[in-house]
């Protein structure tokens, strides 16, 4: 896998993440769950900026940014705030894993950017109700 392949794969995941955040936000009441609404809104903005940056990186690497799908399948019931919060946390876990793959495949400024974003996603999981982990993004390193 080349750096460009890894960037494209990360970008494809970001398209899905943005779609998912949009759905989660749309199903969250700003009036009754303001904290969750703010957390999801902030997450959406971060991922939107991340998508934009990835598109630039793909172009810089000589590629044509992969386009978003029309829609994405979402797992499970996403109706109640705990379900929405958990879905957001799962999304950030997947993002961390993907960005760590980009760290492995890249060097220099791309790696440093991927490291910063992976760290952000891992820390944002705490905002979504999860506890700190020993190996975020690399669960196979945890003891079984």
């Amino acid at each position, binding site marked *: 896998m080349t750096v460009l392949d890894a960037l494209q794969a990360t970008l494809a995941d970001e398209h899905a993440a943005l779609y998912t955040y949009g759905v989660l936000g749309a199903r969250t009441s700003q009036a009754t769950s303001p904290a969750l609404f703010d957390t999801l809104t902030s997450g959406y903005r971060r991922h939107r900026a991340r998508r934009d940056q990835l598109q630039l990186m793909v172009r810089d690497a000589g590629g044509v940014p992969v386009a978003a799908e029309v829609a994405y399948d979402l797992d499970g019931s996403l109706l109640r705030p705990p379900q929405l919060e958990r879905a957001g946390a799962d999304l950030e876990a997947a993002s961390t894993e993907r960005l760590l793959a980009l760290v492995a495949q890249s060097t220099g400024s791309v790696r440093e950017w991927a490291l910063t974003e992976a760290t952000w996603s891992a820390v944002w999981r705490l905002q979504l109700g999860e506890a700190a982990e020993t190996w975020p993004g*690399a669960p196979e*390193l945890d003891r079984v």
Partner: protein
Amino acid sequence: MVPGRSLTRRTTVGTALVAPLLVAACDIDPPSRDNGSVDAAPPPPEDSELVTAVVAALVRALSVVEAATLSVPDLTPLLEPVATAHASHLEVLEGAVADADVPTPPPPRIPPDRAGALTAVRRSEQRLLREVRRGCAGAASGDLARVLASMAASTAQHAAALGDLPAGQEES
């Protein structure tokens, strides 16, 4: 979906650095190189030095956490997950470092009060985070960079958890 990356503790960084040919044989994608080839040559010396530096930082950070726990036993529930993470990180890396290269840090001086001890731990964790990030950015091995990136993310999570304490809880 993230592609399968089945790096196990059997193929930890320590093993990878000690026996670099195993890296080429394991199923972790190597970092891209200009010619796209998999490099089975021994890892460059700078990675060994880099791992030694991270191990030293981990040992120092762990000593600060342990000293803080001894100084303020009430902090044990809060700091135990941090110590557990550091120990697990050390376990993965220490195989790559000769025993003689693992430093014994001087006993850290920790304030006897809860707020002071927590501040000392927070500063220590930020210092560790900088060292791990530096190691990740500079690693020649993509696998090592990935492991260090996960360590950095974990350290940042734990630091955030410590920082999220309600203000009143930090007072002794």
